[in-house]
């Protein structure tokens, strides 16, 4: 079910192989493969030295200035972390090769064994330290807040105090990033967190006025804040906060590799080559001096997560409620957008069959256009691009409902068209002969009969739409799949959440499937008489 639900996500514009995309969502399969791949592995350092190459995981989608896609070399982007890895590579005599993955999924990619290390602004934090081997830090990061140019919010304190029209301010973050953690910890109940899959998506939404602010790692804020798309539209708050360290993570059993990396980074801190890289990207600030003081980070390296009590009753209940709430969002999106899709679809089908000759080709183009482009792209358009063109942004929920309804209306119109055409012409003639108008005949005689015919295929489409609601996560809707992804990645309890999520999906879609089959049989038995 989850695999089906996410087949549509394959359309996402990233370079990860398709099978991997499917796997990352399927906890059970994932765990099995992980165990297989691990049992056969010695320390990766030997292989790296033998082949002269190492694979690292990172996300180039909105990833500047960490990694910037390089049109001249698809295997190695530019960016300050790319420069860092190249320098490290020279010191350990191996060439870095990028493995693209969605940022919040990269720790799982490392677990699976697809990459030797992950290096993409991953902060030093207990949850990851418990699971992976962290190297010494290579960067001191701080958080910076971006707001629209005309916003009254200029500092972190302003944000906490502000409440435009009595509502909590909406703050966008990269899902599961340091900024996300920071908001949860220090502002959780005073703001509304809106989670994005990409850092720049959050900036776009801020620029469009769909959210009030976005909290970003300073490098991203500085880099994108200077880009023409944002320069005159977004401002960066003056204060910095939520500082921490970026580290490279490797698998725990790769201790030898980690020691080599530690040595290389330390060398670069000492001989100033690290500073050279950061200055090139205008990222050097006085706090980077802490990189030379092991005391500043030793405590975190040795720490264990505060209390890892995901098994405790109240926490479990909390997670269950979060999943149920997300499931309610999935149901809400489905039951609101499907009737709309059916209504629009019916009108389009009527227009194509009975409407004025002039609009028929236009409606045909409407159908072909919507069926021929991915839902995800349409959602992006409605949420991110539409505000650019028309000057006002739609809230994510409304954008999702419109996107789903319009996308599915194309499919429903084709189903309705077939249904309407299946009604004998004589039914219309008999209605006209009785003095009915064409309109009366359509609504009283033809459409009710066509509707009975289309119920089974429409029900099937409803199940498909129900699962396609997960695509809305790209425009910050936290529905069931997204909530699964957030919880699984932030707790690393993938299997448990995958099972719970699957069960919820099945509990919702099985009754629908059952209804569709039952109704189909009912129609068949009717037709036999």
């Amino acid at each position, binding site marked *: 079910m989850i695999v089906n639900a996410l087949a549509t996500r394959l359309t996402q514009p990233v370079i990860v192989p398709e099978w991997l995309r499917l796997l990352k969502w399927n906890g059970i399969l994932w765990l099995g493969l992980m165990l297989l791949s691990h049992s056969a592995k010695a320390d990766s350092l030997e292989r790296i030295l033998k082949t002269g190459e190492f694979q690292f995981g990172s996300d180039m989608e909105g990833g500047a200035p960490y990694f910037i896609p390089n049109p001249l070399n698809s295997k190695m982007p530019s960016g300050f972390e790319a420069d860092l890895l190249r320098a490290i590579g020279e010191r350990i005599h191996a060439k870095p090769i990028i493995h693209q993955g969605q940022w919040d999924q990269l720790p799982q990619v490392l677990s699976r064994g697809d990459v030797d290390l992950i290096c993409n602004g991953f902060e030093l934090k207990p949850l990851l330290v418990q699971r992976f081997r962290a190297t010494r830090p290579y960067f001191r990061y701080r958080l910076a807040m971006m707001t629209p140019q005309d916003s009254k919010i200029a500092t972190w304190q302003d944000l906490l105090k502000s409440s435009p029209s009595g509502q909590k301010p909406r703050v966008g973050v990269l899902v599961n990033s340091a900024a996300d953690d920071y908001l949860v910890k220090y502002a959780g109940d005073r703001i509304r967190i809106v989670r994005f899959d990409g850092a720049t998506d959050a900036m776009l939404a801020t620029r469009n006025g769909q959210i009030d602010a976005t909290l970003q790692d300073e490098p991203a804020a500085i880099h994108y804040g200077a880009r023409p798309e944002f320069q005159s539209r977004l401002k960066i708050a003056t204060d910095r906060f939520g500082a921490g360290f970026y580290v490279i993570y490797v698998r725990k059993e790769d201790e030898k590799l980690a020691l080599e990396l530690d040595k290389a980074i330390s060398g670069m801190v000492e001989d100033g080559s690290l500073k050279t890289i950061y200055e090139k990207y205008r990222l050097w600030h006085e706090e980077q001096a802490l990189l030379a003081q092991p005391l500043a980070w030793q405590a975190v390296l040795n720490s264990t997560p505060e209390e890892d009590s995901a098994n405790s009753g109240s926490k479990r209940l909390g997670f269950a409620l979060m999943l149920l709430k997300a499931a309610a969002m999935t149901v809400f999106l489905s039951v609101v957008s499907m009737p709309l899709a059916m209504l629009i679809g019916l009108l389009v089908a009527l227009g194509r069959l009975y409407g004025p000759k002039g609009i028929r080709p236009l409606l045909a183009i409407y159908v072909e256009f919507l069926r021929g482009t991915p839902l995800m792209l349409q959602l992006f358009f409605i949420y991110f691009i539409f505000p650019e063109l028309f000057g006002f942004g739609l809230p994510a929920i409304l954008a999702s409902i419109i996107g789903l309804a319009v996308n599915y209306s194309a499919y429903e119109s084709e189903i309705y068209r077939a249904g309407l055409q299946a009604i004998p012409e004589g039914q219309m003639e008999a209605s006209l002969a009785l003095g*009915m108008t064409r309109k009366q005949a359509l609504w009283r*005689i033809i459409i009710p009969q066509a509707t009975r015919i289309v119920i089974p295929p429409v029900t099937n489409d409803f199940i498909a739409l129900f699962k396609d609601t997960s695509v809305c996560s790209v425009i910050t809707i936290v529905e069931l799949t997204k909530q699964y992804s957030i919880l699984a990645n932030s707790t690393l309890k993938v299997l448990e959440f995958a099972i719970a999520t699957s069960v919820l999906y099945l509990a919702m879609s099985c009754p629908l499937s059952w209804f569709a089959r039952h109704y189909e049989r009912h129609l068949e038995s009717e037709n036999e008489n």
Partner: protein
Amino acid sequence: MIKASNIQKSFGKLHVLKGISMEVADGEIMTMIGPSGCGKTTFLRCLNGLESIDSGSIQVGNLEIRSGEPLLTEVLKKVRMRLGMVFQQFQLFPHFSVLENIIEAPVHVNAISRQEAVSIAMDLLRKLNLEDKAHSRPRELSGGQQQRVAIARALAMHPQALLFDEPTSALDPRMTGEMGALIRALAHDGLSILVVTHDMGFARRVADRVSVFDQGLIAEQGSPEQVFSNPQSAALRDLLTESA
């Protein structure tokens, strides 16, 4: 009274009706026979506006449809309400019960109350011996019963005339006899009846007058005795040879 004057009709290059004139009085039964493709069914469909006419005029009581004039939907609607049509395949509405089939047009076209429509419909069903089928679905009825429901549906609009397209094609000989009796009874009540049929025996038995169609024209017309005992046209002689 129904009067058609010099009706012409083409489908593309195919000239189907080449000038048909016909007058049917109240209470009169006119049967129309002729080889396949002679235009008799097209003529029937032209009468109630299911096909537009290229030239000529159709008069139903004091209403008139002329070719070349923009078709007023109001006039067309009134003409259709005065001409009940019983299709060859009956075309009952399968998603409605028998009763709902009959009251649909009175309620939604004539705008009479549902209660009144139901009482009219039940009267008709009683006369047609279908009272117990009021709440059945059309598919649960035999062909003959479905045909009588189609007649009741047309009668519920209080038409001046009934148009039948091949009413005996789905009936056995005994049912054909009953249908003839029913048509006679309806004519006796003052309705004009126009019947298109392939069944020579039926056309002869039931008719007051017979029209023989051939290649878009009326080849001959007259009382059944006249026409059948002394056929003037080659078309009718061929038909009689075939059916003999």
